[in-house]
Each structure stands twice: as structure tokens, then as C-alpha cells.
């Protein structure tokens, strides 16, 4: 897996962004960007160069599910891998995210190992599909 890939972390809680950023760095991924909700993430995504989007669901202005839908609706980003890291625990929402095209779903609280496994799984699947 390309450890220099650019990862955008979107979460309204700065502590959670720091946690994910540090875990990713421990896993060897240091090229990260941050945004505090879907609205601020969108211009960063539109600017291009993002290889993986890690987003929360429950955020003000533009929630993660809406950001995911925007990404899938954009011809330039529809194949962008999206990992949702969220406390949203209802089955209905997980199905909703899957139907919207999420590539992975990590429920909070999570472990470093879970995050690593899900990222690896996403890229394994994309490699098989590609």
C-alpha cells in the first residue's frame, strides 16, 4: 500500500481528528489533511489529490453521509475510497451508508488495530476490483 497517500480526516471534534491523525502516522501514513465538517472538507476534496477520505457522520453544516453522497455524485471523485469513523450505531444508518457507497465503517470507540484493518481491507478490495 502506498504510504505516501494523501488522507483527508473530517470530524467536528479536534480531539478525534488528532487521534486518527496520530494512529495513521503510527501506521505509516503521515500525509494527512483535516477538516471540521463536510462543508469545509468539500473544497479540499474538489481541489483534488486526496486518496482516502476518513469522515465522521454526525457533524454540523454538512454531515458525513451528505459528504459521501456529494463525493459519489461527482464524476471526479466517485471512486474515492471513503471510510466512515462514527458513533452512529443504528443498523438503519449503517445500511444507509452502505447504500450511499461507503467503503468501510468503523464504530467509535475503536482500536488502532481496527482502523488499520479497515484501511487495509479497503485498498485490498480496490486492488482486486481494479
Amino acid at each position, binding site marked *: 500500500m502506498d504510504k505516501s497517500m494523501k488522507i483527508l480526516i473530517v470530524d467536528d471534534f479536534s*480531539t478525534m481528528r*488528532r487521534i486518527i491523525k496520530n494512529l495513521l502516522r*503510527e501506521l505509516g501514513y503521515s500525509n494527512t489533511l483535516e477538516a471540521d465538517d463536510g462543508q469545509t472538507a468539500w473544497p479540499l476534496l474538489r481541489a483534488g489529490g486526496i486518496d482516502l477520505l476518513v469522515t465522521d457522520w454526525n457533524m454540523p453544516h454538512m*454531515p458525513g453521509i451528505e459528504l459521501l453522497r456529494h463525493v459519489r455524485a461527482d464524476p471526479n471523485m466517485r471512486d474515492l475510497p471513503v471510510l466512515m469513523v462514527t458513533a452512529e450505531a443504528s*443498523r438503519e444508518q449503517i445500511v444507509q451508508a452502505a447504500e450511499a457507497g461507503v467503503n468501510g465503517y*468503523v464504530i*467509535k*470507540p*475503536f482500536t488502532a488495530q481496527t482502523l488499520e484493518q479497515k484501511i487495509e481491507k479497503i485498498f485490498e478490495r480496490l486492488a482486486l476490483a481494479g
Partner: protein
Amino acid sequence: MDVSKPELREARLTMARELLYAIEIGDEPAARRSAEMIACAYGSEAWRELERIVTELRAVLSRVGPHGQAREYNGGEQDDAQMQLRQIIEITESAANSTLTAVETALPLAGGVMTLVENFRVKRGADLVPDRELDSLLNRVAGNAEALKAQLSEVLVAQGFQDLTGQIIRRVVELVRELEGHVARSGGPVRESLPTGLAESRSDRGRGPARPGDDDASVVRGQHDVDALLSDMGL
């Protein structure tokens, strides 16, 4: 009550005269009855106002649950808010315990490295260090460093409590704000429903962490359940 009407005014005067007479003759039970009747007559307006406020609060509580869904008011919302506040205590306690456990595990590991290095220095000073002992030292130091790193990652992940408790506190704050707004506007009409689109946006915006009272069937209990559900969907 409008006391400008002659019949009401007369009724109040009669009650007042009866109270005065009962006091004058020392008939305490009669005086008490008259006083209660007067209080009741003058208090009915206040009671009606209070009743109206309570009705409004019930209407708000029935509409503004933490998940925004319509529910019949039965007092459960306060229980729900209390349950969520208790959940904050549990989450913070769990995070504190995880952090303490990691620190308790990490401290002896760091101490072990210091002891190993100190012993090594003593032996090196006496020129008593064979190569195999040096290899052993390096292996043990590397092992301890790896274990330390794992414990520090645990401390890192445990800080996620701030996100979870923050989301729960926001839900409670939202409920309190809605109630305050209605109390402040208690002279105004009761809203029949939430503003258009708010319920939808709440659903899309997310609900936050599952609550202890949530229906088991509708909520996953951890990453294993999420993986099983997504696997069923071919993901």
C-alpha cells in the same frame, strides 16, 4: 377571572364577609374554609396559566426527544436525559480506566529498560559484556519499546471519550435549549411541530452514540456487528 362582572364581585364580597364573620366569632374551621374558597377563586387564573405551561412543556418533550422522533409524553424524557448523563459518567470512567491501565503497564516497561541499561553500563565498565549479552539487551530494549508504543496507542485511543461525551452533552443541551425557549415564550402559541425539514436534517446529521435504553435489535453492539451487517450486504 373578570371581577368587573357584578355577580362575581358580589360572590367575592360574600366570601370575604363570611371569612370576616368567622374570624370575629372565633370559628376557626369556618374561617379556614372561607379562606380556602377565596384562595381558590383568586388562584384559578394562576392555576390555568400553570396548567397551560405544563401542557406546552409536555408537548415539547413529546416532540423533542434526543432522536427527534415523536413520542408520547410519559415522563420518560427526563429518565432518558438522566440515562444519557449517566452514560457520560460511564464513558469517562472507562476512558480513565483504560488510560490508567495503559500507564500502569507502561511504567514498569520503561523502568525495565532503565534497569537493563544501568546493568549494562556496570558490566561494560568492568569489561564483562560478551556479544550474546549485548544482543539480548538490545532485543529486550526493543521489545519493551514496542510494548510501550502499544500502550501509548491505547492512551491515544482512550481520548476518544471526549468526542462521544461531547455528542451526548450536545443532545442534552439541545433539549434544554428547546425547553427554555418554550418557557420564555410561554405567553405565545404552542408550536404544532418542529420547523419543516428539521426532523429530516436531524436524521441525516446523525444521532450520536447509542444510548443504554436503545432497542437492541436496531442498534449494533460493536465493530463485530457492523462487520457482520456489511458482510451480509456484500461489503
